[in-house]
């Protein structure tokens, strides 16, 4: 039996039936993992062994059409996208407590919804294959459920009371999928446990893993899920169970073997996508022309065209005549750009541990990092606690998002002191002539006065984000309120993050303290 020819014949009408989903021509192959089909990145591959088994009872075209209807319905109906899949899984795991049971519950629920949607909306032979699929106790119960809710005799075997309860779940109401999967999991928990204990064959039509989704879909799903969960631990509990799949899709560190997915880092990376912080552009381009800068005595070996006739008193004598030394002009051009950014993040004991609770400091830093990286600037990270006692994490300027977020998510939890020498050394390694500085802290820094003096004297734009209010923040604002290139923002909730404007300054050019004193205070608080 040439199953590929059968697929080729049947595919056009199946596509038409499902209103032309964007899927490639399905293939038929020997699949190692048990199940009727495999779906990987929108490519459906049917298991030739399952097809042959079903073809003993049904015509080949019916078998192919039913399996394709089932596969396509997973894309067009349930779970629709990775975020929905994660939500269903998270709910099932909260109910059942174990990863293996939760995966089984999610897969079963997805199958029921997809099959029921197909049977309701389309002429499909899916019920025919369920008469001959076989399987364990769980499959028998689900077949009995289909008999009950589809009104067809599919010869399933299940406890009638259980089937009646399962039949009352509104599978086709998408708005109620979350309470439905909770109830579904609770009712079938004994069967899931028995299936797991006996290590029976999984669901006959196959399991659903991350392979069904493209990397872009996974990324979008993680982002949506990060926004939906109530705390980081729920995200970690759910996403942590998909670590192997995420590593296979390249969501690990990206270099070498054994680089695992850090769910906490992933959480902040995805959540930071929610907020798009603006950055004020800076005129970056120099004039490019050489201009006379200073005089030096002319030597015979030097060119004569640069001799300054006036300061040479008209004489052409080595040691007496003066020649110009030229330098690139410091006039800025029209083109604006984004400088690099040095992020200084306080991770002392007074700050929230980002791996236990949502840290607005880390989230704000992540949003700023995203803003700079999006504009092709480089970011350095100086994560400090008690820097003098080596409580710091230093990352040089770069554009590796994973490494940057890993640096941001490090929690030292000790005292608070900022080693300014380290900051200056790191700042000088920037490719930009004057990188931006971003300081995120609760201001409870031991050497706060030194930090204030340093920030006042340093070049470049400075954005300071302080978490919470205390006497130190008042002191800081008091001292820096007239600084032309320093802006202070307060963040106490995630709603304050969009208020941050990076690189906001009064003027791009330094003004005298005279004029600064008379300028109105315009700190964005």
């Amino acid at each position, binding site marked *: 039996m040439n199953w590929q020819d059968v697929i080729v014949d049947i595919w056009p009408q199946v596509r*038409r*039936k499902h*209103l032309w989903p964007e899927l490639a021509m399905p293939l038929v192959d020997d699949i190692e993992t048990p199940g009727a089909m495999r779906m990987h990145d929108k490519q459906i591959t049917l298991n030739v062994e399952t097809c042959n088994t079903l073809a003993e009872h049904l015509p080949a075209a019916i078998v192919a059409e039913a399996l394709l209807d089932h596969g396509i319905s997973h894309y067009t109906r349930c779970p629709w996208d990775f975020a929905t899949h994660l939500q269903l899984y998270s709910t099932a795991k909260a*109910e059942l407590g174990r990863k293996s049971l939760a995966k089984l519950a999610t897969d079963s629920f997805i199958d029921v919804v997809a099959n*029921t949607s197909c*049977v*309701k*909306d*389309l*002429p499909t032979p899916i019920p025919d294959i369920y008469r001959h699929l076989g399987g364990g106790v769980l499959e028998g119960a689900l077949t009995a459920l289909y008999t*009950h*809710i*589809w*009104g067809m005799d599919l010869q399933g075997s299940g406890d009638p*009371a259980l089937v*009646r*309860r399962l*039949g*009352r779940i*509104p*599978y*086709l*109401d998408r708005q109620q999928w979350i309470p439905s999967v*909770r*109830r579904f999991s*609770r009712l079938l928990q004994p069967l899931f446990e028995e299936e797991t204990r006996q290590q029976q064959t999984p669901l006959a039509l196959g399991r659903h893993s991350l392979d069904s989704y493209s990397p872009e879909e996974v990324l979008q799903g993680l982002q949506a899920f990060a926004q939906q969960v109530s705390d980081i631990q729920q995200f970690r509990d759910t996403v942590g169970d998909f670590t192997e799949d995420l590593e296979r899709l390249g969501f690990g560190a990206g270099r070498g073997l054994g680089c695992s997915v850090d769910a906490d880092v992933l959480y902040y990376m995805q959540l930071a996508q929610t907020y798009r912080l603006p950055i004020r552009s800076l005129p970056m381009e120099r004039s490019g022309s050489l201009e006379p800068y200073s005089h030096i005595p002319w030597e015979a070996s030097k060119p004569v065209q640069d001799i300054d006739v006036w300061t040479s008193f008209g004489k052409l004598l080595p040691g007496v005549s003066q020649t110009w030394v030229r330098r690139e002009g410091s006039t800025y051009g029209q083109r604006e750009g984004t400088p690099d950014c040095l992020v200084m993040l306080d991770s002392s004991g007074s700050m929230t541990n980002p791996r236990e609770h949502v840290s607005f400091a880390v989230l704000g830093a992540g949003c700023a990092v995203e803003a700079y990286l999006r504009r092709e600037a480089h970011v350095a990270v100086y994560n400090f606690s008690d820097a003098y006692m080596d409580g710091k994490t230093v990352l040089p300027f770069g554009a590796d998002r994973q490494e940057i977020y890993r640096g941001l998510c490090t929690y030292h939890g000790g005292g608070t002191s900022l080693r300014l020498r380290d900051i200056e050394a790191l700042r000088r390694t920037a490719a930009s002539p004057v990188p931006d500085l971003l300081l995120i802290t609760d201001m409870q820094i031991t050497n706060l006065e030194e930090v204030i003096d340093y920030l006042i004297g340093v070049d470049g734009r400075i954005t300071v984000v302080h978490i919470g209010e205390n006497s130190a923040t008042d002191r800081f604002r008091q001292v820096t309120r007239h600084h032309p290139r320093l802006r202070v923002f307060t963040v106490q909730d995630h709603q304050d993050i969009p208020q941050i404007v990076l690189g906001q300054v009064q003027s791009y050019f330094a003004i005298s303290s005279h004029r600064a004193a008379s300028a109105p205070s315009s700190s964005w608080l």
Partner: protein
Amino acid sequence: MVNPFQAFRHYAGVRRELPLDRIIAQRDHVLQQLLQGYQAFVEEESRQLVWVVEQGALSRAYTTAVDVLQDIHFTAEDIEDMCTELDGASGAITPLGAPSGLFIAAMCNHTEEREITLNLRSMTRRWPFLGYRLPRGRRLFLEGDVGDFVGALLEGGEVTVTGNAGNYAGIGMRSGTLQIGYSSGKNTGEGMRGGVLRVQGRIAELGKIKQGAIYEGNQQVFPAEP
């Protein structure tokens, strides 16, 4: 405005009417009736400025609940759905603790099925008065923990609790069997006049028992074995 997709309407398949649709519609209809009945019950009980757990109030509230449920045809599954609704406590309905427990007990006593199983494990509330006046010939199986007054005034029915029970378990029971899988609270069997009360775990404190038998594990604690 002309629907631009009108020309393609014949492309879609004919939607089938499944038994699932009828089941869900029936379920929603009955649940709606039960919720309306519960609202009427709550309004009636709210007229009492102070709701005190005493014989007269219990009897009155139970009678009100039975009257409200008279014309509603519900099944054991509807009772569980109702418990889920009350536990969810959305703004539309107000769970009232003891009166809500009596309402659930009234439902259990007047449904057509003789054997009822309620899964309480995933519920946040521990309903009191479950099994209140359960008559002979009915069995109530409660999976999970229950609140106070479970099996109060039992009238010959069988109540089985797989988890823990609160205080005053089996208060005033006349006949029947109350089995508790784990432990019970204080005043267990208070005013008991007959029947059998078995606690597999520990009894925190016995109440003033008149008649009947109480077992803690395999040991009979009332009447105390010589």
